[in-house]
């Protein structure tokens, strides 16, 4: 695995009386897609800002590519790429002019910018001013500007916030390819499904602290959480379904029947016997369940 790309140790940052980051420690390995997951105000963004060198920590240490990011370290900035929450662009420039500007700022040729536009699928929007682009297109352009100098480490802060579900899925396809070339990616998100879909490892944060850190699969595997089955009932009465051995909970909303169970194989077999598998959906434990188990609170983004 080699030496860690990012080493965070007992990191602390306080605003007034609020402990925004309260003793956070983790390592990010080379080539890894690392996620920081948590609700708003959990301290994800502040943690990221401390690693990027935008803020000075009140305690603990950060090593980024073996160097200290604070105070502002220009040599280090050349090796990282940061995409911000807001789409920060120059006023009234076209997509091509924006990416050429960023290319020049990082000392790479304009042609690299054109190639990047192609890669994020914005070539046909190259002559459009950023004011006229959609939210999804802006995020793609923002990502292209982040990657134009081929950084070793990429920071993505809530890259799909404020996008509609379709645009989010489209962006996931693009984000999923980011670490193909061995690049390290660190992402913050408050979407559980996003972290599950993209990340190799996830740190779950709440109230400035890391509650758990592992692969999404390992995090959910350790849970004693129920599997959710849902079927279109057909001839199956909800009361009959509730009587199937192993079903702990049964809800019928008029369209589909939702069953909770810790013995999914047994319940599925019983449903198959009754020929009631129409529209079957199975959902195992998710990071939402992990959050619920860790904090005792329902996860709300």
């Amino acid at each position: 695995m080699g030496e860690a790309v990012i080493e965070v140790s007992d990191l602390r940052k306080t605003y007034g009386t609020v402990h925004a980051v309260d003793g956070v420690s983790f390592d990010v390995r080379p080539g890894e897609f690392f996620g920081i997951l948590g609700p708003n105000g959990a301290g994800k963004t502040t943690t990221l800002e401390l690693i990027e060198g935008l803020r000075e920590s009140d305690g603990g240490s950060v090593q980024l590519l073996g160097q200290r990011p604070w105070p502002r370290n220009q040599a280090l900035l050349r090796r990282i790429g940061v995409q911000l929450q807001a789409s920060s662009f120059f006023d009234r420039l076209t997509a091509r002019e924006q990416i050429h500007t960023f290319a020049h700022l990082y000392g790479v040729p304009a042609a690299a910018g054109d190639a990047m536009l192609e890669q994020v699928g914005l070539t046909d929007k190259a002559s459009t001013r950023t004011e006229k682009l959609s939210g999804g297109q802006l995020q793609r352009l923002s990502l292209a500007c982040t990657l134009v100098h081929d950084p070793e480490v990429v920071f993505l802060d809530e890259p799909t916030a404020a996008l509609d579900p379709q645009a989010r899925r489209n962006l996931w396809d693009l984000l999923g390819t980011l670490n193909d070339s061995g690049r390290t990616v660190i992402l913050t998100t408050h979407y559980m499904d996003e972290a599950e879909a993209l990340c190799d490892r996830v740190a779950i944060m709440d109230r400035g602290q890391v509650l758990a850190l592992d692969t999404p699969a390992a995090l959910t595997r350790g849970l004693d959480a129920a599997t959710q089955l849902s079927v279109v009932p057909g001839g199956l009465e909800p009361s009959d379904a509730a009587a199937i051995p192993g079903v702990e909970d049964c809800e019928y909303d008029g369209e589909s029947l939702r069953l909770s169970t810790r013995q999914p194989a047994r319940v599925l077999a019983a449903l198959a016997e009754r020929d009631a598998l129409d529209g079957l959906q199975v959902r195992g434990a998710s990071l939402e369940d992990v959050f619920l188990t860790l904090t005792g609170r329902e996860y709300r983004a």
Partner: protein
Amino acid sequence: MKATLTPTLTLSLAMWRGFLREKMAIFFVLLFPLMFLVLFGGIFSDQGQSKGTLIEVGEVPMLAELSKPARTALEDAYEIEHSGDLAAALDQVQAGDVDGAVEQHGDEVVVHFSEADQVAAATLRGTISALVQGANVASTGEPPRYSLVSQQVEDESLQTIQYVTPGLLGWAIAMSATFGAAMTLVEWRRNKLLRRLRLAPISTGSLVSARILVSVGTALLQLVVFVGLATAAFGLKLTGAWPMAVPLLICGTLSFMAIGLLAGAVSKTSEGASGLANLVILPMAFLSGSFIPLDASPQWLQTVSRVLPLRYLNEGMLDVMVRGQGAAAALLPMLVLLGFALVIGVVATRLFRWEAD
């Protein structure tokens, strides 16, 4: 050929393009000040030519016996109406419809005037008095001993446009440099571009230099357009070491950029920053002689103006552009402007924040 531009040039180009594409910015930087130039240069320049009106009540032999040149001079200055009704004529004088009424009883010439317009009254009395003196001299049959030749100390062609062009140009430069700096700072902080640039491997110096390049470029554009229009349309004549206007304007731009950075540093929104910049620049333009010549202003105002950078920009530009002064006349204003830039710049740097929160 280099494959990439330097950070400073890259940022300048991005700002310049954004500026040229914003219609409101072009309006406030060029068209709005030019409207004032047309107003002052076009309308007020005719002020001196406007004729007064004089009523000749009954017969005034003194006027009838004037020499030809004296008669011409009188008719250049006044439209002469005739009336037999003194009371009606006096009503007209009192109402301000005419400048005065003249009547003659024997050898006594009587001029009726109103003090409501003191300048008009003084001019009328002076004119009639001169005519009476001339008639007296003529009646002696002797040639006059003294003759009067009057000459203006400035260029003989000096017109209103000569005064207003440098002052309005100073105001225009002050406005665009202040607003440019303030808006860039506030807007870039608001949309987090400032933060994005902080995460790029460029120095703060590159960022500031880029803004200076764009503001100086804007000021040069204003100079060319102003002087071009004033010359072509209103007969502006540049005298003296007028090329010194360029370094002067660069120093002025630095001063006003510093004011803009200060306004941007203490404002959270672009509305706040533009309000603050207006609050500073507009009164300063009045107090520094951009609209009204300082020479004609009361003493206290001239004293106040000495603490305002725009006064030095205006005076320096007047000296080298229309007062026929040499290059040395621009040096002191340039030094003072750089001093303002330095002091205000240091304060702005102290108050500067990268982030909105």
